[in-house]
C-alpha cells in the first residue's frame, strides 16, 4: 500500500541497543468506587513500550489489563473510576496530567485503540466510511472530503475488506463480525498512530476469523510501524504476535519477559498455572488443569502475595502470606517476576507448544 508512507524511523531491530520507550508507565493506580467499596482495579503497574514492538498483556478477566490501558486514554468513566496516582510518559508528556483537550488531540492520532467487540463498537446508524473518515477528519480538519473518503477506501483495502469502494458506503450491520473488526483496525490506524492498543481484538470473533484478524493486525503494524499493546487472555495469541509479555494478576504485574523466555521458563506460579490450564494437543488428557480457587476480591486484598491462596508453590509458607513480593529481575535482567520463590521454578518449562512465528 503506497497510501501509507512509513511514518517513523524506528524499524524494529532486536540487536540494536535498547531504544527510548515510546510509552512509559510508572506506578499506575486506578480505583473504582462501587457500592461494596473501593475496587483497586490497577495497583501500581509499571511497564515500558518500545518502538515497533508488540507487548502482550495477559491475565484473567478483572486483572486490570484493559483498565490499565484505557485509563491512559481517559476512557474510563470518572466517576466511578479514579486515577489515584502514576505517570504515563508519551512523547515527553505525562498522559495522566494532560488537559482533556490535549489528551483528545493525542487520542485516535498518536494513540489509537481497537476494542474487543466489533459488533457493538461501531455506531449502527453511520456509514463505515463516515466513521473511518471522522477519525481522519478530526485530526486533519483541512483535508477535503473526497480525499478523506479515498483514504477510507485505501484503509479498508489495506485491512483486507473486499470491494472497498462499495463497502465504504455501507452500514455496520451490512458487515460480518470479522469485517467489522477490520474496519475498526482501519479506523485505528487511519492516522498512523505510534502506539496501537488492541484490547482483546479477537475475543468476540469466530475462531476461523481470529487468524485472519491477527494477520490484519500484523499487516497494520508493518504499515504504520506502531508499537502495539496486545491485551488478551489467550496465550496462543501472545505466542503468535507478541515480542514481550506482561502477566497481570489482581491489578498487578506479576511477570515480565520476552515471549520466548516466558514460554520456555515461566518464573511465576501464576504464569505456570495459566499455561497448565491450556489444553495440550500432544497429550491425551481427560481433564484440563485449572488454577484452583477464585481471583481475590479487589476490595479487600489479602495481605502478602495476592496469588498465595491459589499458589501451588507457596505451600503455606508464612512469607507468601505476610510479605508482598516486589517485581524483581531473575535469570537475566529483562525477565522480571513478583514471586519470593521464583527460583524454585527453575527447570520448569512451559507446557505450551513452541511459539509459532513469534516476534515480528
Amino acid at each position, binding site marked *: 500500500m503506497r497510501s501509507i508512507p512509513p511514518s517513523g524511523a524506528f524499524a524494529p531491530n532486536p540487536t540494536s541497543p535498547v531504544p527510548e520507550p515510546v510509552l512509559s508507565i510508572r506506578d499506575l493506580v486506578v480505583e473504582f468506587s462501587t457500592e461494596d467499596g473501593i475496587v483497586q482495579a490497577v495497583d501500581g503497574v509499571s511497564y515500558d513500550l518500545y518502538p515497533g514492538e508488540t507487548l502482550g498483556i495477559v491475565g484473567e478477566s478483572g486483572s486490570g489489563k484493559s483498565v490499565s490501558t484505557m485509563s491512559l486514554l481517559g476512557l474510563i468513566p470518572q466517576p466511578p473510576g479514579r486515577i489515584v496516582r502514576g505517570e504515563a510518559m508519551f512523547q515527553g508528556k505525562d498522559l495522566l496530567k494532560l488537559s482533556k483537550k490535549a489528551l483528545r488531540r493525542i487520542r485516535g492520532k498518536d494513540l489509537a485503540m481497537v476494542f474487543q467487540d466489533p459488533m*457493538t463498537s*461501531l455506531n449502527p*446508524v453511520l456509514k463505515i466510511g463516515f466513521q473511518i473518515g471522522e477519525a481522519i477528519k478530526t485530526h486533519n480538519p483541512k483535508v477535503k472530503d473526497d480525499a478523506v473518503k479515498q483514504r477510507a477506501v485505501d484503509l479498508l483495502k489495506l485491512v483486507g475488506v473486499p470491494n472497498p469502494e462499495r463497502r465504504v458506503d455501507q452500514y455496520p450491520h451490512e458487515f460480518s463480525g470479522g469485517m467489522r473488526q477490520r474496519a475498526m483496525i482501519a479506523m485505528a490506524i487511519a492516522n498512523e498512530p505510534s502506539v496501537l492498543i488492541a484490547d482483546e481484538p479477537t475475543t468476540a470473533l469466530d475462531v476461523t476469523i481470529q487468524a485472519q484478524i491477527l494477520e490484519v493486525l500484523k499487516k497494520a503494524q508493518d504499515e504504520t510501524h506502531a508499537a502495539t499493546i496486545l491485551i488478551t487472555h489467550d496465550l496462543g495469541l501472545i505466542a503468535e504476535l507478541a515480542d514481550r509479555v506482561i502477566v497481570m494478576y489482581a491489578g498487578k504485574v506479576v511477570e515480565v519477559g520476552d515471549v520466548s523466555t516466558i514460554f520456555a521458563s515461566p518464573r511465576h506460579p501464576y504464569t505456570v498455572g495459566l499455561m497448565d490450564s491450556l489444553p495440550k494437543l500432544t497429550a491425551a488428557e481427560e481433564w484440563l488443569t485449572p488454577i484452583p480457587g477464585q481471583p481475590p476480591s479487589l476490595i479487600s486484598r489479602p495481605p502478602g502475595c495476592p496469588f498465595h491462596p491459589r499458589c501451588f508453590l507457596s505451600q503455606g509458607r508464612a512469607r507468601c502470606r505476610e510479605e508482598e513480593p516486589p517485581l524483581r529481575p531473575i535469570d537475566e535482567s529483562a525477565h522480571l517476576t513478583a514471586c519470593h520463590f521464583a527460583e524454585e521454578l527453575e527447570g520448569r518449562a512451559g507446557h505450551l507448544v513452541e511459539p509459532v512465528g513469534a516476534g515480528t
Partner: protein
Amino acid sequence: MLTYIIRRLLYSIPVLVATSFLIFTFVSITGDPLGRLRSNPNITAEQIHSIEHSKNLDKPVIVRYGYWIRDAVTKQFGTTLFGNRKIWPDLRRVMGHTLQFILSAIIISAILGIAIGVYSALRQYSLFDYTATTLSFVGFATPVFWLALMLQVLMVQIFLKWNVRVFYTSGLSSSVNAGHGFHFLLDRVQHLALPVIALCALSTATYSRFMRASMLEVLNSDYVRTARAKGLIERRVIMRHAFRNALIPLITVIAIDFGALFAGAIVTETIFTLDGMGFYFVNSLFASDPYPVMAWLMVVATMVIIFNLIADILYGVFDPRIRYE
C-alpha cells in the same frame, strides 16, 4: 420504501373494513337512538315507526351497515340522525382544531422532554437530574383535570387582581376581537395556551423519562467509547453518536402518542370547552346520535393506523438497520 408504504396502506384497508364493521355493530347494539322519543308521551307510535322507516332503523343490522358504508363513502358519512346536519363539515372543523391543539402540545413537550432528558443523562445524579426526576413524577401524578382547573383559577385571579388578560380560560377564539393575521394568531395562542400547558405536563414528563433512559444507555455503549477514542470533541460525540441513536425509541413513542391524542384529550377539551375532537365526541354521545359517533370512531381509527405507519417510516429513516423492502 415507496412500495413498503403502498403495501402498508393496502394492508390497512382490510383493517379499516373490519374496524368499520365492529364500530357499526357495537354502536348500533349498545343503545336505542330513539329511546328518548319513545318515552315521550307526545309522540305517537306511528310517528316513531315513520322515523324508523325513513332512517332505515327497522332493517337488520347488517343491511343498515351496508347503507352506512355507502353513505360514508359517497356522502362523507352522511347526516346526523336528528336534525339532518351534515357530519363531515363539523368533523373536519373539530379535526382542524384538535390538530392545532395537539400539534402544539406534542412539539413543545417533545422539545422540552428531549432537552431535559438529554441534559439529565449527561449530568446524571446532579441537582438538575434529581429536580427533573422529581418534577416528572409530579407531572405523572397530577390529574389533568385538576391541573386544568388550577390553571383556570390562576388566570381568573390574575385577571381579577390586575385586570390583565394573559390567557383565556375557555373556547378557541374571542368572537369580539379575533381579527385577522397576527391578531388572530395571538388570540388563538392566548386561547390554546392553557390546554396545551395542561396536556404538556404529562407528555413532557413521559418524554423526558424516556429520553433520559435511552440516552444513558447509549452513552454507556461501546460505539460512544469508540467515538471518544477517535479523539472527537465531546459535543460531537454527544450529538452525532449518542443523541441520534438515543432518539430512535422516542420517535415511536411520540408518533403513536400523536395517533392516540388525536382522539382528543377529552377531559382537557371539555374543561376548556375547546371545539375539538374530544368535545365533539362527548357532545355526540350525550345527544345519543349514533352516526357522528361512528364517523368519529372511523376517523380516529384511520389516524391511529396512519401514525403507526409514520412511526415505522421514521424508524427506518433514523435507523439504517431497518429498511423496508
